[in-house]
C-alpha cells in the first residue's frame, strides 16, 4: 500500500521528464566557467561550450536539451544518466577515462598560476613553500598541484569562478587555473587589478592525449562516433573558426584537429 502510493507518486513526478527523454539528447553544461559557459542576468546560458554544443546538435540533426549541473557532480550525473554527454570544458585525462569515454578534443588551452604581480620570483616547490594554493576540486589541475606541491596547503573550491573570488578575497596566496578563464573573468575585471598570470603555461596531460573533450558514458560508441563526426564537420565547414573568433583573439583549436 505504502510502496505502491509512493511509486505512483514518483511516476507522476517524473512523468514529464520521462516523456521527453526518449528522443532528445541531453547535454550537461556548467555555467561557472566564463567565457566558456556562464549564466546571464535573464538566466540564459551562453559561452563557447554552449555554442559548440548547439553547433554539434545542429550538425548531428538531433534535438538537444541543456542541463545545468554543478562541476562537482558532473561525471556522477552523467553516469547516473541525468544527461547523455558533457560539454563543460572537461580535460581528457587517464583518470577520467577509467569511468567515462571522451570524444576527440575540441579545444586546448594551458593552465597557469595567477598571483599578485611581483609576489613571487619563481614557482618551484621551494619558491612556494608554505603558500596556500587555490585550485578547482576534482580537476587535473588539482591532481597536478597535489603531485607537484605535496607539502603546500591547498584550498580546493567547487567551481572555477570561485578560484578567483577566493584569490581576490585573500584566502590563498596563489591560484592555479585556466589561462583563459582567469584572463577573461578575472584579470580583465576591477577585482583582478594588480594580479597577473605568472610562471609557465602548462598543458596538463597525465599521460592522456590532453585537450578538452566531450564526455559520454562508457560503451556508447554510436553517440561518440556521431559527436566526432559532427565535430570534424563544424571544423570543416568553418563554424568552429567563427565561434573561435567570436570569443578569443588567439587559437584554442587543439593541434591534433588543425588541418
Amino acid at each position, binding site marked *: 500500500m505504502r510502496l505502491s502510493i509512493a511509486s505512483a507518486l514518483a511516476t507522476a513526478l517524473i512523468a514529464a521528464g520521462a516523456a521527453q527523454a526518449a528522443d532528445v539528447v541531453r547535454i550537461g553544461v556548467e555555467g561557472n566557467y566564463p567565457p566558456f559557459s556562464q549564466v546571464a542576468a535573464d538566466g540564459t546560458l551562453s559561452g563557447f561550450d554552449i555554442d559548440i554544443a548547439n553547433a554539434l546538435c545542429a550538425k548531428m540533426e538531433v534535438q538537444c536539451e541543456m542541463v545545468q549541473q554543478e562541476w*562537482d*557532480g558532473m*561525471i*556522477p550525473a552523467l*553516469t547516473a544518466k541525468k544527461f547523455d554527454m558533457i560539454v563543460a570544458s572537461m580535460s581528457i585525462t587517464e583518470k577520467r577515462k577509467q*569511468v567515462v569515454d571522451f570524444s576527440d578534443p575540441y579545444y586546448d588551452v594551458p593552465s597557469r598560476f595567477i598571483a599578485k604581480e611581483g609576489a613571487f620570483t619563481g614557482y618551484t616547490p621551494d619558491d612556494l613553500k608554505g603558500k596556500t594554493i587555490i585550485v578547482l*576540486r*576534482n580537476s587535473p589541475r588539482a591532481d597536478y598541484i597535489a603531485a607537484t606541491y605535496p607539502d603546500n596547503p591547498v*584550498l*580546493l*573550491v*567547487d567551481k572555477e569562478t570561485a578560484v578567483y*573570488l577566493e584569490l*581576490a*578575497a*585573500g*584566502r590563498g596566496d596563489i591560484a592555479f587555473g585556466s589561462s583563459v578563464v582567469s584572463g577573461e573573468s578575472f584579470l580583465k575585471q576591477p577585482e583582478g587589478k594588480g594580479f597577473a598570470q605568472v610562471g609557465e603555461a602548462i598543458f596538463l596531460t597525465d599521460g592522456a592525449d590532453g585537450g578538452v573533450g566531450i564526455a559520454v558514458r562508457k560503451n556508447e560508441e554510436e553517440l561518440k562516433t556521431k559527436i566526432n563526426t559532427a565535430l570534424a564537420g563544424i571544423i570543416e565547414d568553418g563554424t568552429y573558426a567563427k565561434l573561435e573568433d567570436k570569443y578569443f583573439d588567439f587559437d584554442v583549436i587543439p593541434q591534433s584537429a588543425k588541418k
Partner: protein
Amino acid sequence: MINWSIVIETLPAFWHGLQITLLLLVISISSGLLLSIPLSVARASANPWIRTPVWLYTYVIRGTPLLVQLFVLYYGLPQFDSVRESALWPLFRSPWFCAWLAFTLNTTAYTTEMFAGAIRSTPAGEIEAARAMGLTRFQVFRDVFWPGAWRRALPQYGNEVVQMMHATALASTVTIVEILRVARDVYTNYLVVPESFGMAAVLYLMLTVILTQGFRLLERHYLRHLDPKASRTQAPPKGKQHIADA
C-alpha cells in the same frame, strides 16, 4: 555488493572527516550554550528594551536557512574592502572561523528560545519561595531558576545537539573536509553509492545513537526525581522548533 577494497582505501579519509565533524560540533555547541544562557534570560525579561533585540536576532536567524547564513559570512563578507582590510580579516579569511560563527549564531538562536521558554514556565511560587528565604537575585537564578529551566529544556536541547551535528554537513560547502565532503569525493572518484554515501550514513547514524543515548543518561540523571518510566516514554519534540511557537 560492497567493494571492501574501496572501503579500506577510504577509511583513513572517513576517520579524518569524522574527527572534523566532531570538532565542528563541539566548538559550535559549546559556544552556543555559553551565549544562550545570558541571552535566554534577556529574551524572557519583562523589559521590552532588553527582550526585543534578542527576539529580533532569533527571529532573523530562525527565519533564514543556515546555508544562506553560512554563504553570507563566507562568500559574502569579502565583497567589502573594509572587511578585507580590517583587523578581523585573518579570522574571516578562514573557512573554519566562518563555519564556527555561522553554526554558533544559528544554534544560539534556537537554544535561546528553548531556554527562554523553559524560564518562562518556571512556577512563580518557586521564585517567591526562594525570595522569601532571603536568597539574592543571583542566588535565585543560579540555584532555583536555572537548574529548573535546564531540566525542563534538556530533552529539547538533546534534540538540538543532534540537529546541529547533522547541520555540520553544510561545512562541506565551504571547503571544509568533514564526513559528507569525504563521501562526495569518494563518490566522484569511484562512482559507488554504498561505499560513499552509505558509509557516511553509517557514521552519522552512529553519532546520532551515541548522542541520543548520552542525553537519555543525562535526562535520567537530572530528572530522576520524576517517575523514571514517565521520563523515558516522554518523546523529544520533533524537528526544529520554529518561530511560530515563540
